[in-house]
Every structure is written in structure tokens, then in C-alpha cells.
């Protein structure tokens, strides 16, 4: 009985239980992650980290969360009201939804009902995760855009560019997994790894996935969207109170999700290594434990990276994504496809002209390599780079008579209430700065 069929029988109450369970799991993981991160990073920096609230300081993040909820909400006057309101929701909802397809355990019995520890098993499970992460980008972009402030806008753009760039590499790396498991269903992928985990069968895919999952979640060393030194707080600079918390939640849930997906795709999901399916270690509820452990390992990787690596410069970051990860992923994909074909043919004993195919593959790989690698060598000497990447802002030509925009398009300037500008300046600007710093402290445990 396949996982999908198991789950399909679920009565509604069981579905509701699972939904609430997953929801609670994610929220708990978030709360845990925040404290854990601060503690681990603290250790790495030879300081204790949070240790006051609750036993061992483990309730620190809960306290922070409650505090956030009761803070004053400030919405800038220039913000686009509705988009500003909906952006954190858009960021948050897909983050929860994406996790639904992750198999977190094997077949179990809940109140007598045989089911699998997975909310839903879809034939397109992996695509659901990718789709949700794509939709999540809207939350970021809209949040930055609607704030009506330059820093969030830039942060949002950076963030979006980053997420979509690394999504390509991530998607390409997953394809090899899909090819080996012949299914997009997450449960099927886990099942396909009973004979061997994909992280060593498909090492290149694994590495690319891990790198791009860090990029995808805007985490250090790829946390450019919120680079404090450049962009204050990034896309959520103008957010406060609960809305800020939602963004924050979304980010951490995304981390959990991509880690869980990594577990599913490459580490055999909830299965214990080296044992049969019937072994007691692969019992359904125990699978939950293995799954959480593996996921935590990935999460620890996130923290570890954050604690050790400096932030990349933006061009280095994009270069890594577009010029290294994507081409390698493409070549790897073709190579895997080729290898699988050859293997299938050999198994079937029908490989007619192996030499021809080998040559074909070699030529193809060589051509692709040339196509991808050659340009870089001459990059510096090429004088005619497309200038759009240069100045950044479009600059009108010197003598261009710009057509007068129609009246309703007239640019509205921030309308500040009248007052003596000089007098209000100092005190006025101080407060938001302080507020943001406070928010920042809440998020960065080691600040």
C-alpha cells in the first residue's frame, strides 16, 4: 500500500489533527531554532547566549515573540496600505503550506487509523515545495515595494533576485533526484532511497542543493537582502510588531522546510540507514525521530555557516549562482540522463553502439563545457559588456526632452506635515533608527 493510498483514506478528523500537528511542529521548530541559533552562535563566539528566560534560556524566543505581538505597529505614511498589509501574509502562508508534502514518518496507527506520518502525498510533491517558495517571494517583493522607502525596496529586489537565482540551481539539482526515483512524489523519493541515499549517489546534486538552499532562504553567508551595513533591515525595514514577526516566522519555517526537503531528497527521509524496511528502527514513529534529527543536522549547518562565514559581496553571490551552480547543474543533469540511459541499455543488453554514444556524450559535455567556461576567460578584455549592469539607474540622455507626463501621473512627493524642518530633523529621525535597531536585536541573537 503506497503512502498516497494510505493517506487518501484519512478521515477528516485525522487530517485536521495532522494539519494542526504540522502547524504546531513548525511553530515550535521556529521558536526552538531561534534560541538554538543564538545559543550555538554564542558558543562559537565564546559567550553563553540567551540564558534568562525559562530553563536554560530556552523560552527566550517565546518571550520575544510575545513581546513583538504587543509592540506598537508603525505603518509609514507612504506605504501602500493594502499591499503593505497583505505582504507578510503572502510570505507566511506558503511557508506553512510547503511543509505539507514532506514525509516526516512512516506508516503508523493513530487512534486505530492506519496512516502515514505525512500530511499529503501528491504526485507533484516536489513541485509544491518549489511553487510555495516561488510564491513566498511575492511576499518579500511586495513588502519591500509597498513600504514606500528606498531601503526596503532595494532589499526586496535583492532578495527576490537572490531567491529566484538560486531557485534555478535548486530546481536543476532536484531533477537528477527525480530521474533516479522516477517520481515527483516525496514519499516515492523516500522509498527510492531504501537502496541508497541520494547524497552519495548524486553528490553534485546534493552539494548544489545545499548551497542553493542557503541562498534560497537568504541565510548567511548569503543574507544580502538584510545586510545591515548596506540596507538597514532589508525588505522588512518598515515592518514592526506582528507583521514583522510573520516575516520572521516565514524565514525560519522556510529554513525548516528546505532542510526537511534536503532530508527527504538526499538523506533518505525518515528512514534509518542500513536497515530493512521491516526493521523496528524503521517503525513509523521512530521515523519521526530520525527525520527530525536529520533535519536538525541541516539546520545546524545553517547556524554553523552563519557563525563562521563572512557575507558575500552581491556580485560574487550572483556570480556563484549563475556562473557556477547553474551550468554545473545543467551539465550534471545531462550527464546523469546519459548515464541512466547507458545503464538501462546495458541492463537490457541492448546497447548497440556504445562507442557512438560515448562519443556523443563526450562531445556534448565538451560543447557545454566550452560554452560555459570559455567566456569567463575573456571576460575582462571584452570591452562591450551590456551596460545595463553598469550604472544601474537608467539615465536619460543629455538633451532628451522628456515628454510631460499626464496630470494623473504626476509624481507625488512624500507629503510631510509642515513644520520647521531644521528643528524637527534631529529628533524626528532618531526614533525610527532606534526602533529598527531594537527589532534587529530581537532577530539577531548575537547582536
Amino acid at each position, binding site marked *: 500500500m503506497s503512502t498516497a493510498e494510505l493517506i487518501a483514506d484519512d478521515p477528516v478528523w485525522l487530517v485536521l489533527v495532522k494539519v494542526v500537528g504540522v502547524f504546531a511542529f513548525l511553530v515550535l521548530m521556529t521558536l526552538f531554532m531561534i534560541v538554538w541559533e543564538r545559543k550555538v552562535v554564542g558558543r562559537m563566539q565564546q559567550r553563553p547566549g540567551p540564558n534568562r528566560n525559562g530553563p536554560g534560556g530556552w523560552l527566550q524566543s517565546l518571550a520575544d515573540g510575545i513581546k513583538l505581538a504587543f509592540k506598537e505597529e508603525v505603518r509609514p505614511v507612504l506605504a501602500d496600505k493594502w499591499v503593505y498589509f497583505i505582504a507578510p501574509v503572502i510570505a507566511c502562508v506558503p511557508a506553512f503550506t510547503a511543509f505539507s508534502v514532506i514525509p516526516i514518518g512512516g506508516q503508523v496507527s493513530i487512534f486505530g487509523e492506519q496512516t502515514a506520518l505525512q500530511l499529503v502525498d501528491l504526485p507533484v510533491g516536489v513541485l509544491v515545495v518549489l511553487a510555495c517558495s516561488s510564491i513566498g517571494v511575492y511576499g518579500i517583493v511586495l513588502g519591500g515595494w509597498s513600504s514606500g522607502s528606498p531601503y526596503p525596496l532595494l532589499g526586496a529586489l535583492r532578495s527576490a533576485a537572490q531567491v529566484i537565482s538560486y531557485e534555478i540551481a535548486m530546481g536543476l539539482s532536484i531533477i537528477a533526484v527525480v530521474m533516479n526515483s522516477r517520481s515527483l512524489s516525496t514519499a516515492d523519493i523516500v522509498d527510492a532511497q531504501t537502496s541508497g541515499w541520494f547524497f552519495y549517489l548524486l553528490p553534485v546534486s546534493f552539494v548544489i542543493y545545499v548551497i542553493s538552499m542557503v541562498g534560497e532562504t537568504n541565510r548567511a553567508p548569503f543574507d544580502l537582502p538584510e545586510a545591515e551595513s548596506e540596507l538597514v533591515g532589508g525588505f522588512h525595514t518598515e515592518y514592526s510588531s506582528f507583521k514583522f514577526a510573520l516575516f520572521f516566522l516565514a524565514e525560519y519555517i522556510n529554513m525548516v522546510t528546505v532542510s526537511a526537503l534536503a532530508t527527504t531528497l538526499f538523506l533518505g527521509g525518515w528512514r534509518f540507514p542500513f536497515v530493512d524496511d521491516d526493521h523496528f528502527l524503521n517503525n513509523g514513529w521512530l521515523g519521526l525521530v530520525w527525520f527530525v534529527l536529520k533535519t536538525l543536522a541541516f539546520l545546524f549547518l545553517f547556524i554553523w555557516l552563519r557563525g563562521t562565514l563572512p557575507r558575500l559581496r552581491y556580485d560574487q553571490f550572483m556570480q556563484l549562482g549563475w556562473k557556477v551552480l547553474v551550468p554545473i547543474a545543467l551539465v550534471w543533469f545531462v550527464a546523469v540522463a546519459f548515464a541512466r540511459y547507458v545503464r538501462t541499455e546495458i541492463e537490457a543488453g541492448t546497447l548497440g553502439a556504445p562507442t557512438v554514444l560515448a562519443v556523443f556524450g563526450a562531445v556534448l559535455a565538451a560543447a557545454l563545457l566550452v560554452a560555459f567556461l570559455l567566456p569567463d576567460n575573456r571576460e575582462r578584455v571584452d570591452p562591450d559588456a551590456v551596460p545595463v549592469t553598469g550604472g544601474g539607474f*537608467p539615465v*536619460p540622455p543629455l538633451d*532628451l526632452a*522628456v*515628454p510631460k*507626463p*499626464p496630470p494623473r*501621473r504626476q509624481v507625488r512627493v512624500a507629503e510631510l506635515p509642515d513644520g520647521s524642518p531644521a528643528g524637527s530633523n534631529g529628533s524626528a529621525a532618531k526614533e525610527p533608527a532606534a526602533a529598527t535597531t531594537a527589532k534587529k536585536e530581537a532577530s539577531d541573537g548575537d547582536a
Partner: protein
Amino acid sequence: MTPTYYLLLSALLFSIGAVGVLVRRNAIVVFMCVELMLNAVNLTLVTFARVNGQLDGQVMAFFVMVVAAAEVVVGLAIIMAIFKSRRSASVDDSNLLKY
């Protein structure tokens, strides 16, 4: 779950897109309306594929998506170019070619 509803929805979306193209003045919004029309078509295709019990319609939807993407790329490039030149994306401002 009669397919009629899906067809009606897609026709509605298509009409919204078409009307949008005709009444909106911002090139990008017009363009988005076109995309809406294409996606309405996708819905139709998939519905018919379901009705006919075939895969063809779904495969076609893939192709339509590709085409839509290519259109996005080309369209944005053109709109950006004109935006760079005249700092406005309003179709109304493009009046050099009035009859």
C-alpha cells in the same frame, strides 16, 4: 464538478484580460492582461483535456507557458527600452505614431 464552470471561469478571465488590454493605459498592465488571457486559455485547455480524457491539452498548456514566458522576456525588454527613453510606460504617452 461539471467542466462548464471551468470553461465559464476561463472565458471570464479571458474577457477580463481582453477588456483590460483595451481600457488600461499602462503598457505593463496591458501586458499583464495579455498574460491573464494566456492563462485563461491554459485553463480552457486543461479543462478540455480532462473532458476528452487526453493529455494533449495539458501538454499544450506547457507550450503556452513557454510562449508566455518568452513573451514576457521580449515584452519587458521592449517596454524597458522605451521606458529608458521616455520615462513613462503609459501607452497614452506613446503618441508619435498617431495617424
